[in-house]
C-alpha cells in the first residue's frame, strides 16, 4: 500500500500567497477535497497540482469558480483523448511499418 503525503493548507496558502478562505471556498464548491488532523486542514499530494492549476486559472486569468468547475473535467477529457490518440498513433505506426 502506498503512503499518502499531505501538506498543511496554511502552508500552501503562505507559499502561494492566497487566503485560507479561498481554500474553504474551493471545498464548498466541490473543487477540492481536504483532510483534517485536529484543527489543521491538510491537502493531499495528488490534490496539490490540481489546486495550483485552480489558483493560476482563478488569479491569473480571472476565471470564476463556476468556470473552473466546468473547465477541469473538460481538461481531463482533453488529456484522456490525447492519451488515446498516442495509443492509436502507435497502433497505426505498426501497420505502416509492415
Amino acid at each position: 500500500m502506498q503512503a499518502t503525503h499531505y501538506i498543511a493548507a496554511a502552508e500552501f496558502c503562505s507559499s502561494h500567497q492566497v487566503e485560507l478562505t479561498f481554500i474553504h471556498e474551493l471545498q464548498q464548491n466541490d473543487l477540492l477535497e481536504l483532510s483534517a488532523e485536529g484543527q489543521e486542514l491538510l491537502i493531499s499530494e495528488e490534490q496539490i497540482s490540481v489546486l495550483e492549476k485552480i489558483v493560476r486559472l482563478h488569479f491569473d486569468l480571472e476565471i470564476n469558480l463556476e468556470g473552473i468547475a466546468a473547465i477541469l473535467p473538460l481538461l481531463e477529457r482533453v488529456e484522456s483523448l490525447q492519451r488515446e490518440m498516442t495509443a492509436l498513433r502507435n497502433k497505426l505506426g505498426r501497420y505502416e511499418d509492415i
Partner: protein
Amino acid sequence: MEFIDYYKILGLDKNASQEDIRKAYRKLARKHHPDLNPNDAEAHRRFQQINEANEVLGDPEKRKKYDQYGKDWQHADQFEKAGQGQGPQQPFGSGGQQFYTEGFEEGFASDFFESLFGHATGSRSRRTGRFRGQDYEAGLQLNLTDAYITHQQTLTVNGKNIRITIPAGIENGQKIRLKGHGAPGVNGGPSGDLYITFSIHNNTAFRRSGDDLHTTLTIDLYTALLGGEVTADTLAGKVKLKIKPETQNDTRIRLKGKGFPVYKKEGEYGDLYLTIQVQLPTNLTSQQKDLFTQLSKM
C-alpha cells in the same frame, strides 16, 4: 536580435487604450494559457509572447519606453554608444537570439525584452512575491529493449544532472512528470516540473501492441506436418515449445506472460503471439522429388 512588435502580438494598433490592452491580453491569455492547452508546445510559446507583450504594454512606463526606442531598434549601436556609462538599464544590449522560455510566472522574457527592461520578474501577477518556477520539457529516446526493464538514466537538463528511474513498460509518446525538477521558484516559491516525453525505437523483430508482443516463427515443412519441438525467441530469452502435428501456415500461438511488462505493475506481463510461417524445402534431391511425387499420388 529581432524586433518584437508587441502591438501585433496582442492584435492592437499603437493608439490602443490601456483598457484595450487589458482586454486583448485577457482574451488571448485565456486562449493560449498552458493550463488550458495541455501538451501543446505552440500554445506555450504563444502564451510567453502574449505575457511579454502585456508586461510591456500593460505598464504605461514600459510602454512609453518601448514606443520611444522599440521602433528604432535598428539603431541600437548608436543608442548603446550614447548610453555608455548610464548603468545596466541601457536600451538594447548586445545581440542574441530571440528566446522565449517555457514558464509562465517568471523567466518569460525574450532577449529583446531584457535588453530594454532588464530581467523580467513577473511583477504584473496579482500574487506578488513567490512564484513557481518554469516547467521544463525534454525528450528521451529509448530502444524497445531498454523499455523492457526498469532502469535508471542520468539526464542533463539545463546543465544539471538528474538521475531518473524509468519504469519498465513505458509506451512510445508517453509523457511523465518529475515534480520539482523544473526551474527553481522565485522568492522561495515552489520549483517547476520536468516533463519527459519518451520516444521508443523498435530495435527488435517483435511488434508491440500495448503490453503484447507479436512476431513470426518460421518452422520447416516436416515439423509442421509431423509436429515436434522448436525454439522461439522472446525478449527474455529463448523458450522451447511444442508444435502440434499438421500445424497450418498462419497458425497463431499465444505464449502467456512472455510479452511486454505492464507499466508500473511489477511482475505483470502481456502475452507473446507467434504466427507460424511454414518454410517449404528448396533444392530438392531427385529422391525427395520422387517421394513427394509418390505422396501426391496417394
